[in-house]
């Protein structure tokens, strides 16, 4: 039992910290530290910088051109990026679809798709949820019918995050209606420039365009774009989920945002109000406890002992904490959280009509936006079912 990182791990962290400090553009970290809107180009720029260094696919093994880092190194990399105010890596390419292509794709598919993901040149989207299939994902209905050497895809995907910029989309599609719903699903890679695809924005409650509906109308997809075997897609998708273990808790971001809570509370004059301050202290305890939980999972992964089947707990707690810090920030601003200054999110340099307006303007929007965290990725109620399943008969 030892709480300290090894000298090698500390040296690794120092190396990452220095590199991030030298390579993360200041205009991007300014936006991240202040919850200003990141443009498509902002996200692409950071992805390309990481890609050039070979760190965009930071979880990849060396055989596919990744750095081959340990679980602890991956955690430290995520932490250094988060604390420095780096934009979040869009996970759909490097974190989500790439491991599936590595594990189940053909050599040809690997050579065709992985380089564009690793370099940050190709923007991927995720096509899972449908209007009738949210938490009950296996009930999905988007159909792919085999016709010769291609599939014809018809249906609708939704909640497609940043799909407006997507060049490719990985989809779960129904290729069979026989047997259990899970057994008739296939994993298909689709070029979003294909005729018959329409992307429509969904504006969320904060007024932002983050998610989309994607319609498929007789979209022709080469059969070469099928991953693995037909009707085995559910297995591949589960493999994908098993790749998101600790980063689902997003504890590094929570640490960064807790400091922002304190700064905003001090600026607004409530940090010395015992009733408010104690709530910040409570959140601090919760974040330390979550970090310890994450470190326990990493340690178990490292040693192979004491395997901890607690991904559900990490998702539940991490999402609750994200909601909580956004809530406290908004409450700290008090009545000044109320003005809806949409233009403030776009323009670094926007001043507003009262002191610190630029700091305060994004807070309520972030609070509203964060309600998604306990809903997406398997709602927290579904996660509770999963946790209970590990305990009960």
């Amino acid at each position, binding site marked *: *039992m*030892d*709480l*300290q*990182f*090894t000298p090698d*791990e500390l040296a690794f962290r120092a190396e990452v910290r220095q590199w991030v400090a030298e390579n993360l553009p200041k205009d991007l970290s300014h936006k991240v530290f202040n919850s200003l809107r990141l443009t498509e180009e902002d996200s692409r720029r950071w992805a390309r910088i990481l890609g050039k260094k070979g760190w965009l696919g930071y979880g990849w093994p060396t055989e596919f051109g990744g750095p081959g880092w340990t679980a*602890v190194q991956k955690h430290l990399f995520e932490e250094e990026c988060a604390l420095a105010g780096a934009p979040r890596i869009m996970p759909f390419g490097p974190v989500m679809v790439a491991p599936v292509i590595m594990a189940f794709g053909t050599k040809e598919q690997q050579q065709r798709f992985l380089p564009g993901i690793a370099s940050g040149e190709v923007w991927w989207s995720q096509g899972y949820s449908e209007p009738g299939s949210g938490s009950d994902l296996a009930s999905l209905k988007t159909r792919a019918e085999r016709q010769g050497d291609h599939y014809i895809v018809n249906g609708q995907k939704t909640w497609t995050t940043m799909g407006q910029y997507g060049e490719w989309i990985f989809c779960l599609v129904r290729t069979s209606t026989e047997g259990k719903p899970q057994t008739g699903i296939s994993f298909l890679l689709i070029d979003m420039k294909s005729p018959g695809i329409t992307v429509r924005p969904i504006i969320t409650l904060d007024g932002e365009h983050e998610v989309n509906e994607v319609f498929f109308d007789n979209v022709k997809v080469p059969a070469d774009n099928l991953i693995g075997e037909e009707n085995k897609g559910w297995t591949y998708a589960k493999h994908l989920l098993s790749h998101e273990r600790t980063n689902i808790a997003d504890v590094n971001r929570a*640490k960064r945002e*807790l*400091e922002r809570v*304190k700064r905003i509370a001090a600026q607004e004059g409530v940090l010395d109000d*015992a009733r408010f*301050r*104690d709530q*910040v*202290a*409570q959140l*601090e*305890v*919760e*974040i*330390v*406890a*979550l*970090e*310890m*939980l994450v*470190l*326990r999972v*990493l*340690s*178990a992964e*490292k*040693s192979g*002992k*004491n395997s901890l089947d*607690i991904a*559900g*707990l990490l998702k*539940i*707690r991490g999402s609750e904490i994200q909601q909580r810090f956004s809530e406290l920030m908004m409450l700290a601003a008090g009545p000044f959280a109320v003005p809806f200054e949409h233009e403030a999110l776009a323009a670094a340099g926007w001043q507003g009509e009262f002191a610190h307006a630029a700091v305060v303007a994004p807070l309520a929007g972030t609070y509203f936006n964060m309600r998604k965290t306990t809903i997406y990725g398997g709602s927290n*109620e579904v*996660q*509770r*079912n999963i*946790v*209970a399943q590990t*305990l*009960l*008969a």
Partner: protein
Amino acid sequence: MDFDFSDDQVSLRDAVAKWVDKGFDFSRRHAIAKAGGHTRDVYNQLAELGLTGLAVPEAHGGLGFGAVEAMVVMEELGRGLVNAPYAAGALVAPALLAAAPAAVQEVWLPKIASAEALVVLAHQERGARYRLHHVTTTATQQGSGWVLTGQKSVVPAADEADAFIVPARIAGAADAITGIGLFVVAKGTAGATVAAYPTQDGARAGELKLAGAAATLITEDGYATLEQAVDVGIAAACAEGVGAMDKMVAITVDYMNTRKQFGVTLASFQALRHRIADVKMQLELGRSMSYFASLKLGEPAPQRRRAISQAKVQLGQSMRHVGQQCTQIHGGIGVTDEYISSHYFKRLTVLEMAYGDTLHHLGEVSCRMTETAGVFA
């Protein structure tokens, strides 16, 4: 960064668990509680395992083990709901005596290791709440020695202890952190009387009344030592709580899998499944912070104090949540004296109040907030 236990630590855990299995079942606990909470026999049996010497340096006849070993033992004692003043006598007292002159250590530490003497901290005072620096018991020099006057409250195993370690004010105002001395008062000293009572969790405590009682000086400047020793006690309470919660959850899960209502097991109701998932969450957060507490015990005082308070907040909340929810899931049987889970609930409740409850420690965290948060802050 490594949260695996060494082979020796696993053996220690197994040895304690084995003794609990054979030597301390629920009927024994129940009988002790009914008879007024006398536990010295249990304490002496722990000594036969060598456990009372765990934190005593080898030079004084102990094992000289560290914080992780103490945590392992406390987890198992908690799991077995073992009723004995183990943390007070074997972990906290040696930490206090670390500040004593060699001659005083030579008198007490070997006896602590062998359990010939049960020595407990008597620090709480009416009106002090959980503040360690609120000390109104006075210490005055008389000839070459010291005499103490005042009253210490809710002292663990008060009428079974052989000696008390008493913080007393040598100088300064009631709340000053300077001028607090630490003293040993032996049982039976003229002017020292004990009025004992049973506790809610089936053990025993009492009031130590001092009226010019002769005392041996440990140190004239004892506040830092007192804080350190109390932090040892907090880490022990956290670990005991983890063991107790772990077992209470296991008992509740068994009950959910077997008890039937409406023709089906309780485990089939989603309302209860979600409750047990939340309980599991609190258990694992608590376990994580118990590790944190024990691993931070060796840090310099500012970091240690902050970490220990953070841990006690989490454990306080976890223990209350697990105790209340597991009682609720059981239904009627959960509120009976005959069934074991109510005894876990009461122990967890008392542990929350040991060395500062959740609100007290939240206040400590609140006072110590800095510009960086997290495990390595």
